[in-house]
């Protein structure tokens, strides 16, 4: 009788243990599946990041090609037409002298337009930018904007510029250019201060304007905030970071920090 009881107890305990084992096995399998899912999700994110990076690189390449083409067109076509117009004006002045300063004023206007167009062509041409240092490219851009008289940009450079790879230099310059464009278009600023610091391993660029300011998080979430998003994405593309600090009524600071490649 005792033996039968022992067998029953043994069977009941064995069934409980087996059921428990199955329960625990089920939980372990869920853990395993969950971990696998996590790994796959990380891989997908990595693939997406790589894809986004490649996409951005392609976009930038296309943009640069477009800029180069526009620059070439301005230089070879519009520039030539304006030069021809200036020459034709000279011939006209010789054949039919006109009293007053009218012709020379027109000539002056054409010269001014040619200078402006040449500067725009220079700032658009990636080949030309690659010939200059980053500081020189930014200084040239500042001169071009200051000439318009809409805004006053000042710049300070600290440290000595190290050799920056052409691609990285171009991207950083385009970020600065985008920053200037945003200020001109939206900031209603009268003064802009640019600070470029070359450090051992990093380049810090800070652009401060005294404009109306805004709420960066809000703008970044909007579709219209594409310019700002481009700056942030470009910074990430060259292994750096960009930060926008702003508040309504308190101006805006764009901080760009890029590591030497």
């Amino acid at each position: 009788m005792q033996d039968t009881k022992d067998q029953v107890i043994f069977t009941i305990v064995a069934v409980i243990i087996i059921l428990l084992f199955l329960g625990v096995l089920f939980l372990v399998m869920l853990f395993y599946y969950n971990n696998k899912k996590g790994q796959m999700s990380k891989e997908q994110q990595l693939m997406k990041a790589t894809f986004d990076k490649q996409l951005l690189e392609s976009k930038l390449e296309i943009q640069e090609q477009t800029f180069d083409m526009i620059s070439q067109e301005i230089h070879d076509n519009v520039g030539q037409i304006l030069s021809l117009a200036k020459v034709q004006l000279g011939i006209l002045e010789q054949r039919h002298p006109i009293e007053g300063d009218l012709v020379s004023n027109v000539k002056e206007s054409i010269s001014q337009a040619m200078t402006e167009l040449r500067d725009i062509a220079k700032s658009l041409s990636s080949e030309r930018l690659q010939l200059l240092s980053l500081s020189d490219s930014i200084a040239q851009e500042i001169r071009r904007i200051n000439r318009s008289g809409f805004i006053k940009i000042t710049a300070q450079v600290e440290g000595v510029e190290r050799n920056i790879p052409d691609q990285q230099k171009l991207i950083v310059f385009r970020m600065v250019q985008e920053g200037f464009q945003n200020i001109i278009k939206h900031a209603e600023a009268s003064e802009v201060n640019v600070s470029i610091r070359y450090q051992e391993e990093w380049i810090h660029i800070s652009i401060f304007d005294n404009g109306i300011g805004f709420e960066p998080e809000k703008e970044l979430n909007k579709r219209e905030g594409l310019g700002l998003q481009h700056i942030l994405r470009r910074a990430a593309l060259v292994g750096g970071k960009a930060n926008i600090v702003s508040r309504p009524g308190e101006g805006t600071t764009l901080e760009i920090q890029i590591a030497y490649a």
Partner: protein
Amino acid sequence: MHVAWFQYFQMLSLLVAIYCYRGLRNCSLLAFIPYLIIVNITEVVGINFHFTGREGNYPVYNLYLLVSTPVYFYIAGKMLFLRGKESVVFYTVCLLCLILVYVNFFFIQGMSRFDTFSLVLIEIMTIVFSGLSLVRLTVLDQNELNFMREPFFWINSMYLLFGLITLVVLGLQEYILFNHIEIAHKTLYNVILPTVNAIVYSGYCYAFILCRTQRTR
């Protein structure tokens, strides 16, 4: 009044549930408070039933099955994240189970015997629902879950393990008692169930605290 040691864990879980009221509300688990109140009252009355002069506390536990089962089904429904027709199927199954439990109580096993049929049915449903809930939690969420910090995982794991053990121990309850199946002069379910209860209700406590710490799901 006698209080068994595992009842302290049940009382603690009720207190923790009340303390974590907001967390439970945000996790749609507020029904745990009435559920634990029913559990605690049943255990207190069940263990001290002999003071009333009556033999056997089966009516108390049979009533517990009648009252607690709808609350449990409601909690299970909340943890399954039911959508559209799923909830219709789920609540139809629950209703059928409840009808069987009530039929068993009133017409088959009655009040004076322990309603093992009802208990086995409820435990099977508990195992199925908690298993489904765990699968759903793992499969449906796009991101990797940190199970250790997921209250639903803890609650369902506890339900699952408790269901698997009680299915055997309480399903065979009458047989165990009648044949004096004992280990160290204690009936089998007196050996196993208190420890299981302590583990399960500690697990609930932890889950409730997790609900409180991660209020927004």
